[in-house]
């Protein structure tokens, strides 16, 4: 009997060790444990703090369960048998209050960190970083990134300067999607008729994996893009190359053709974008006035309102 249980416990510990090793082995490729930006760094640290705090309760529970079960097994006649022990008020107070204390600590951390990491809030770093705005539009099934300050747009590709805050405005002209660049920080939903916000920064240049993380239909698996952080001079030259290229102008007619469902679209660029296109995309779900057919011929987007 005893040997069998020991084997069982040992094999379980062995499994845990294997799991730990695998986790260690993968930690370099686990993008989330390897953050490249202010936001993701804080979110990673938050994970570690939370796990450590919870271990204070979880580890004792884990050990106690198996130790007590083993000690008071039926075959062990040396252990005390006391069927009358069904209440110990002090202990019960202890295990109401101890987890509560941990949750209280976590609660304080939650309150502070949720406000600090609020995706709507511009980043508060020690040194004020410059900022650019990107309007992200989730389409069936591709990402359109509009750079309103630069007047260009790109499809399924995002380039931005390193150490510069990227202020995203996110909407969808398709089902709900979620913009996620794990190595830079958390995600936010994009929904039709809504404009949400997300602030991220890359502190090291590189190519980061970006995607939609909220299932949006048949072509969802192809809604991946590369988020490329480069030096500001490289970014400027990238913008200028697109501006001076003969690539298409993104007007309403062009946009509506693009918005039709398509899968695995290649990366492409638009040398100019009609002003207020993003607002028009959001507003067409809000009011019946600027319905898609009315303004298509004029080539300029009408907008009843600025950002929401």
């Amino acid at each position, binding site marked *: 009997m005893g040997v069998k249980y020991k084997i069982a416990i040992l094999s379980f510990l062995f499994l845990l060790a294997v799991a730990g090793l695998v986790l260690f082995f993968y930690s370099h490729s686990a993008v989330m444990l390897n953050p490249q930006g202010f936001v993701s760094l*804080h979110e990673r640290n938050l*994970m570690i703090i939370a796990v450590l705090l*919870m271990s204070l309760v979880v580890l004792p*529970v884990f050990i106690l369960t198996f130790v007590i079960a083993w000690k008071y097994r039926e075959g062990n006649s040396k252990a005390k048998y006391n069927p009358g022990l*069904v209440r110990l008020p002090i202990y019960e107070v202890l295990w109401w209050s101890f987890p509560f204390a941990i949750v209280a600590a*976590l609660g304080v951390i939650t309150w502070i960190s949720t406000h600090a990491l609020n995706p*709507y809030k511009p980043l508060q770093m020690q040194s004020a970083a410059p900022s650019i705005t990107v309007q992200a539009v989730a389409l069936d099934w591709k990402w359109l990134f509009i750079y309103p300050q630069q007047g260009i747009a790109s499809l399924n590709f995002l380039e931005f300067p390193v150490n510069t805050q990227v202020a995203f405005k996110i909407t969808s002209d398709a089902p709900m999607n979620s913009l996620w660049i794990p190595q830079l920080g958390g995600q936010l939903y994009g929904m039709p008729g809504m404009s949400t916000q997300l602030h991220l920064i890359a502190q090291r240049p590189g190519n980061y994996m970006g995607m939609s993380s909220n299932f949006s239909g048949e072509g*969802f*698996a192809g809604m991946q893009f590369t988020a490329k952080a480069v030096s500001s001079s490289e970014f400027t030259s990238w913008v200028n190359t697109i501006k001076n290229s003969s690539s298409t102008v993104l007007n309403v007619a062009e946009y509506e053709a693009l918005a039709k469902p398509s899968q695995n679209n290649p990366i492409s660029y638009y040398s100019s974008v009609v002003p207020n296109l993003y607002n028009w995309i959001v507003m067409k779900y809000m009011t019946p006035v600027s319905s898609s057919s009315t303004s298509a011929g004029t080539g300029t987007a009408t907008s009843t309102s600025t950002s929401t």
Partner: protein
Amino acid sequence: MMSFIFGKLTLSAFEQSPTILAAVSFMGLVGLVVIILLTKHKRWGWLWREWLTTLDHKKIGMMYLVIALIMFFRGGVEALLMRGQQSISVGASTGFLSANHFDQLFSSHGVDMIFFVAMPLIFALFNLIIPLQIGSRDVAFPFLNAMSFWFFAAGAMVFNMSLILGHFAATGWVAYPPLSELAYSPGVGVDYWIWALQLAGVGTLLAGINFLVTIIKMRCPGMTLMKMPLFIWTALATNVMVVFAFPILTATLGLLFLDRFFGMHFFTAGFGGNAMMYVNLFWSWGHPEVYILIMPIFGIFSEVVATFSKKRLFGYASMVYATAAITLLSFTVWLHHFFTMGGGADLNAFFGIATMLIAVPTGVKIFNWIFTMYQGRVRFTLPMYWFFGFIATFTLGGVAGVMMAIPGIDYELHNSLFLVAHFHTMLIGGVMFGLFSGLYYWFPKYTGFKLSEAVGKWSFWCWLIGFFLAFGPLYILGFMGATRRLYHYSASTGWQPLFIVAGIGSLIIAAGFILQIAQMFISYRDRKKNIDLTGGDPWDARTLEWSIPSPVPEYNFAIIPEVHDRDPFWDAKQKGVMATAGRAYEDISVPKNTSIPILMGGLAFVFGFAIVWHIIWLVVAALLGGVTLLAWRLSSVDTERVIPASEVERMDSELRQKIAA
């Protein structure tokens, strides 16, 4: 004319992909074998009289089990197909499933496992155990109980019809609009989803009302609220949640149906619809639903651990308060399913902290179980194995859950495979392990023999090891930025090895399931060897259900017991005085069989099928039929059969002699 008769149904609805065709043919084959066997052994009349028209809560409970088992098979095959697809669909290879088929698979897998496996297993146990544990001969409304079951069965049938005609929703089991709206999902898939859930949900709601009344009004003399077994407390809490939460689902599904059928604008993009409202409504049902699934498990372990530690449950009162606290809190946390929808920091932080608070009463329960074992006599039986497996997995899942309750962390982990791993830890390691524990524990009560422990332990290890192999990699994949619901990914992600490990893990779980089926056959073959010699109390247990013979007679209790303490049967055994001592036999009235519930279920199925395909005349016909049947039932007077006291006495003494022999 054709569209009047057939609605949207055309011949092309029969076109199915090869994998589905294979599955359907297999199911058809199994069905055919069953039909042949029934005919050969002339068992049709028996099936109709003894099972399909019964109002006996015990038989209804067993029918829930049968459906859950069949649906578990379906859900498991779906899981294996998805694991297979994700193991090979990398880079140039797109695997063996199309994107659309994969999307249908994860949608139906979720619906199947939650609605048609976990829920019926829980209601099976409620049916089998609640009346026995509270010393009652029946549930409050036996007819309504059968109706609940047949509505649920109709929902399961509508759900399975999508394999044969048309297709299922490809929207994920949550069916968020606008993806689930007509504009983006024009086919019948979402309609199948709506009506499968709606019918099963109505069945659940009716069953919830029934068990709530049963627990409040039908307890035997002396069983005050604070003397109820803890399983009854958790069942009470579960049914309170059902009664409060399921109407929200009913309303939400109704609104989505109105959007799709009449072109209304509750959740549409544009025209003044609001998709975020759907997400809120869905999860204000959906989060209590999670606790509807896990709460009975807490009750099961409270019974199992006490019995196999030969000790009364430790900290009973704090267990009750913890149960009540979880019930209340379960309605205050739904927003944590969408921290990433752009809610303000105050809102997110509030719901995050409310979510974490649930960890406190849950932790209390675990501590109380540990101290039930403390200074007890712990027997390492099969139900206890599942308890230890539960502790190993559930604590892990709990840590992952509290992590994601912190919005700052959830922004990163939401929609990732980390999330998928978390809730599978809770649903497999928590709900399924708990249900297995309960099923193994109560199995002898209904059959008179125990299940083979040796095979059972093999299957346990398969499940446990398979579980860690299948879901451990998903936690890591989440950290690697893998999102859920991907039918294909690029090779540069480096995810493939972990997906392959997860696939192997799922095969080991499948082996565990096959071993469980084998265990049932082996135990049945060797039933003489495994027979419960005590005649009703194989585990030396504590509560009333073990005081009556196994298998349980139709009337449950020949004499209604009177209890004075918690664990009344243990109490009686200690004192040597049975709870029924000195009380006379009496006439017992039991409900007569009726074919109305199964006919109602049939009409509910026809209604669901017809409305999915927009066959309006059939919808109207089914509704009229339902009204007629209801009126028929309400005007029938002769619904009960009386077993005279002398007959009860004769049957009871016969049973007791058989046990003594």
